[in-house]
């Protein structure tokens, strides 16, 4: 549904955020499906139909297997658990600096992964922990990096905002708002150059949607027909500023103007999967497309932001009750009798245990070696030693 001109009122915004769930989360239930079944194909309708801008939107009927639904549940539960664990780690000062949590938005990361392969690339901003997990990163690397240990995915030198996994096509992890979008278009350019037949998903937020470099990069991508999909994860707040106070037009999927766009319910993992699949096919043939994921974050912008000064607690709890992505999949699984409620609870308990174990293990993990301070500033090439402290080394050799 189109979120058209919003009235300048927080409560109205809250109502609109709750609005998308107009239909029950299932229709045409299939009978007798067993958990782990890969063969039966369920057809499930998304919560709301897609809205297109200069494009015919895909159908709202999505196909999924029970195994897939269970994997969605599991993946999202791990992500949720990790973010909540990160919250307490931050409060116990084991994670420092900035920590931007993704809980509430898990459906975007999981749904996207379901539609693509690891040969496709994903690049996102600083709210990257779950996207990293989705790309195949493990809890080990994630927690170590958050705690600045040497076993982290960036050897402890990146931190929360700089998770990368090159072999899985995850290009980070960027702190400056919007700067990752031109990078993402560059990734797509390379994919076109190498004739890879793969695409790049460049994610950004509703706050970054007002950055000039985004429109610059979009213009170039459209000119050169690059296989890039710009995904606006619209959680409706750019840090503390609501979207209607930051954007004259909050219809982010339309702001590509000459570039087609699609508005998607970002709390519905199946809708995300359908949209990403559709977008991927489109991008390979016709060039860039914008996806706006209507999603929500439960935490504040970062751990230093309580998240309640610019929105009401009712709004947050309301969304948690009505649109939570994990609850949605749980209902689907229960309705289609893929697993029982207690089985799902067991899965969650198992995940909780795994996460706690991972944390306990990595609290013991060592800090980076001091020599790491100067490692990786330059790539060693041409047989040249990059001297970090020229005074120390060179004065000896001169004599």
């Amino acid at each position, binding site marked *: 549904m189109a979120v058209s001109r919003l009235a300048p009122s927080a409560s109205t915004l809250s109502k609109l955020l709750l609005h998308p769930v107009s239909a029950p989360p299932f229709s045409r239930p299939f009978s007798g499906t067993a958990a782990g079944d890969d063969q039966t194909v369920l057809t499930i309708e998304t919560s709301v139909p897609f809205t297109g801008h200069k494009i015919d939107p895909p159908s709202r009927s999505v196909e999924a297997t029970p195994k897939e639904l269970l994997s969605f549940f599991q993946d999202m539960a791990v992500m949720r658990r990790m973010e909540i664990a990160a919250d307490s780690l931050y409060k116990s000062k084991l994670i420092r600096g900035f920590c931007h949590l993704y809980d509430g938005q898990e459906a975007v990361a999981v749904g996207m992964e379901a539609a693509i392969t690891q040969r496709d690339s994903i690049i996102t901003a600083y709210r990257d922990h779950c996207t990293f997990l989705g790309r195949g990163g493990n809890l080990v690397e994630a927690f170590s990096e958050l705690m600045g240990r040497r076993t982290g995915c960036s050897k402890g030198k990146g931190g929360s905002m700089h998770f990368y996994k090159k072999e899985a096509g995850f290009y980070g*992890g960027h702190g400056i708002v919007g700067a990752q979008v031109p990078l993402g278009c*560059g990734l797509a350019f390379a994919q076109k150059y190498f004739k890879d037949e793969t695409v790049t998903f460049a994610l950004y937020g509703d706050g970054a949607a007002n950055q000039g470099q985004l429109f610059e990069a979009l213009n170039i991508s459209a000119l050169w027909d690059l296989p890039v999909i710009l995904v606006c994860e619209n959680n409706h707040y750019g840090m503390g500023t609501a979207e209607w106070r930051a954007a004259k037009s909050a219809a982010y999927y339309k702001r590509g103007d000459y570039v087609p766009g699609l508005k998607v319910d970002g709390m519905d993992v199946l809708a995300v999967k359908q949209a990403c699949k559709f977008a991927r096919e489109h991008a390979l043939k016709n060039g860039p497309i914008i996806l706006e994921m209507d999603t929500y974050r439960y935490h504040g912008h970062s751990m230093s932001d309580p998240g309640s000064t610019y929105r009401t607690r009712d709004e947050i709890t309301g969304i948690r009750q009505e649109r939570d992505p994990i609850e949605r999949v749980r209902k689907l699984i229960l309705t289609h009798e893929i697993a029982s409620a207690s089985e799902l609870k067991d899965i969650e308990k198992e995940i909780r245990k795994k996460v706690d174990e991972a944390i306990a293990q990595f609290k013991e993990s060592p800090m980076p070696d001091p020599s790491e301070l100067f490692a990786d500033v330059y790539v060693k*090439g041409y*047989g040249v030693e990059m001297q970090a402290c*020229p005074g120390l080394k060179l004065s000896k050799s001169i004599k």
Partner: protein
Amino acid sequence: MAAALQMAGTLTASSNIVINSDRFRFGSLPRSSAGRKGTILVVKSDGRHTVGFNAGLRGANLITNAVAAKTEASAKTMDSKPGHEVLLFEALREGLEEEMDRDPRVCVMGEDVGHYGGSYKVTKGLADKYGDLRVLDTPIAENSFTGMGIGAAMTGLRPVVEGMNMGFLLLAFNQISNNCGMLHYTSGGQFTIPIVIRGPGGVGRQLGAEHSQRLESYFQSIPGLQMVACSTPYNAKGLMKAAIRSENPVVLFEHVLLYNLKERIPDEDYICCLEEAEMVRPGEHVTILMYSRMRYHVMQAAKTLVNKGYDPEVIDIRSLKPFDLYTIGNSIQKTHRVLIVEECMRTGGIGASLRAAIIDNFWDFLDAPIMCLSSQDVPTPYAGSLEDWTVVQPAQIVAAVEQLCQ
């Protein structure tokens, strides 16, 4: 703006200098060049020409290797073929073309680099040869196309991003500083960014303040970046090739007024080491460190100084980040006096950093305070006379050396 740049491109330097490349190549090649002599033919823009004295070689113990030289270059001997004459922009183009032939991952992006041929003709003809996917005309959007170049480099492509003027790259500063310089480090070594960012900078001929910026120093603090400045057709081609082959991001500073310098360069494949300084003129009395256009002001001053009986050692530092403290240190050890001549701004300029580095490392060898001649801390004025006073002139260099050697 385009018209002004076009005009600047066709303006020649105040004199057309035909350089015997043998004379100026000592520091670049790891071979003993003792005994090679050459003559200088100087052709002035009004058609007069004079034959210069035989420069000769002074000091047998030249340090021809600085930090490290690529082994490829050492395998070639430069005295076999006569070489060919090129202008500096042609030398850059040759370097670029050779690298594009050699490695299909090299591509060029920038404003008007393709069909137009480049505002300084550095990329002329390349679009016809390599097509639109390898020589890319971008819209006027420095921030995003620099970002795109960096994103492409993350995957293994080797883009050469041209800023029509280095000053325009200020618009891309975030991308250069945060992404280009830092991604290798913050990803724990996962991504390399083998990008080359190049373009002309410096004070031209009355181009106005915004098109005459000397902002090498703005980039010098960015960790992870390498900066080089070319000054002759020989080192322009060599540095261009080395920069493209380097796995690190390299910013190559060219100069608006040097594009039409002519020199005879070798036919065979060669590169210049990125971290190496070039010994232009060995000497005994004072070490003069300079880069880019100041090379010519210094050499002009050197003539006067030699006539007055001084023996300056002139080093083109070429590598602005990191400094080639090896060559520089050896020189200071010999002469004990240092003069830095730069076109950069006085405050926070390259000279300021170089001075600090020399004091940190070679304090014991200095017999006099380090003198640094930089351009004035003013926006470059339009009026010709004021513009001349903005940059360092040969007369000032002569005076400085005289003061230093008292």
